[in-house]
């Protein structure tokens, strides 16, 4: 299954987080919102010109800045969150 960043994922597509590229700071900030490797997510929307991405993770909706979203690597596939 294709591996891409959350930034590249299309709206409506689902996937499973396989890793987060970054230091402790970003990993902890994301983990606090339950965004961590192993989680299934669905991308709800993206904005133009590198705006934030919104995803559904474990029944909650979270908006993530584009830069941060680009560092969340997912395996795209038909897994429902």
């Amino acid at each position, binding site marked *: 299954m294709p591996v891409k960043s959350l930034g590249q994922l299309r709206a409506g597509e689902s996937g499973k987080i396989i890793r987060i590229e970054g230091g402790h700071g970003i990993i902890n900030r994301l983990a606090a919102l339950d965004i961590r490797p192993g989680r299934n997510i669905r991308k709800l929307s993206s*904005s*133009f010109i590198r705006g934030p991405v919104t995803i559904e993770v474990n029944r909650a*909706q979270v*908006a993530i800045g584009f830069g941060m979203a680009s560092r969340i690597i997912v395996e795209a596939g038909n897994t429902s969150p």
Partner: protein
Amino acid sequence: MKVLLMGNPNVGKSVIFSRLTGVRVITSNYPGTTVSYTHGQMKVGDEQAEVIDVPGTYTLEPTSEAEEVARQMLETGDVVINVVNATNLERNLYLTLQLLEQKIPMVVALNMWDDTRHQGIDIDLDKLREMVGVPVVPTVATTGEGIKELVESLPKAVSPDTPVRTHDERWAAVGGIIEQVQRVSHRHHTWRERLSDATVRPISGGLIALVVLAASFIVVRFIGESLIGYVFDPLFNNLWLPVLDRLSDLLGGGGFLHTVLIGSLINGNIDFVQSFGLLSSGLYVPFAMVLPYIVSFYLILGLLEDTGYLPRLAVLMDTVMHRVGLHGYAIIPTLLGFGCNVPAVMATRILESKRERFIAATLISIAVPCAALQAMIFGLVGARGWQYVAMVYGTLFAVWIVLGIIMRLAVRGFTPELLIEIPPYRLPPWRTSLQKLWMRTYGFLKEALPLILGAIFVINILHSLGVFEAIANFTAPVVTGIFGLPKEAVTAIAIGFLRKDVAVGMLAPLALTSGQLVVGSVVLSMFFPCVATFVVLLRELGLLNLLKSVAIMILSALVVGGLLNLIL
């Protein structure tokens, strides 16, 4: 005994706090409404207990300033009520386990319990109690369901033996609990979720945002104008004016006491806007000009807050806000600023970095006029034609953008990226929404009325002592030379430090041209914050940054006022 209310952001801690203590606090449907600690009292058995509403936190690992403070707070508490969002149990339990590791007696309030049913979530309460090892009470804070049981459970708070775990171990433990406790049945997309998706997508969301903001503005104006035209103006003109006329006659139509109480007669008559006595303008300005807009503004803001629309607006505005060195969530303090700059500056605490807080607080103080100031601008400038009101707003908006870009480039530090939870849409809980409206309205009267009356009193005293004339002559080069205003306008600028609404009112008797009125309104909005905002800025930014911020305000007011004078 000290009871701490702790939990993730936006799970309803403040609503529970309000229920437990009877202390009214502002609650909304977005993460980060509570930015400071609120204290209250409640009875546990026969004992009096202090309750503290701690701002929401996702984790006790110090990833942000707020979390660091929450952790320190924990050491002072005797019992924790861990408020948990029942519809999002898994993420909430992470903090629950962390709290248990702190070895402090605890009970869990499983809030938003009513939502689990229609979201197809089934939670085995007995099993959860057994696995967590502390009392678990299902609650619906907005209706009060389960609050009595929660209070009764407090004496049973315990601190079960919990191993200190690592990050991953804790998540694994949470997973283990969820597996045994929670069943989720498949459900269909509800209308709220469809609406939710539509409001964050760029095209549909952008259109919806335009409609929502335009409608808000129109409705605020409509309600405000209706209250003035049909309620307050008739009251003042038909009931109060005859009383004042009699009083004026009794006082002989002039003299010191007449000046203080009634003010000066305009063409032989009392004029509520221009006379400037304590009993004339002193009551008319706060009640008949400002209060109607306070009520209508906070009614609409409350709806936006309580439905959960604001975080979506934050997502849409993120790209724009980054241009001015902020991220999308800064739209929330900014919108609050249109009501009053004081809570707005405090709300900048939801922003992570010092730089962001400085930029946001400065921009709010300069370019976001509060409801009282706007009401006076509507009243005075609007009377000359709405194109002039548009000029005031257009100028302030341009200042907001230009100054924001300059600060983004000039202020050192970083602006982190947006990372926020978007709560589901909710119908506003009417009781708490109306209570919030009342709190804010009452707050305005309590805080502003003494200041307004005080300002008018001071104005009359200084006038009769001739102090203003001395100041006016001294500052004439700036006021007349740069702003093109009559030198007496300096008194308005000086009084602006006390109350901006009174200050705009002071421009009324000066017989300004419409252009001068626009310049005056803009300069009054931008020059110094009012004293209340000043105090909060000092507390939130520190002295050095406050001085920087004030320097920016004065400088930009001079530049923009001067430019406007040249153009108009």
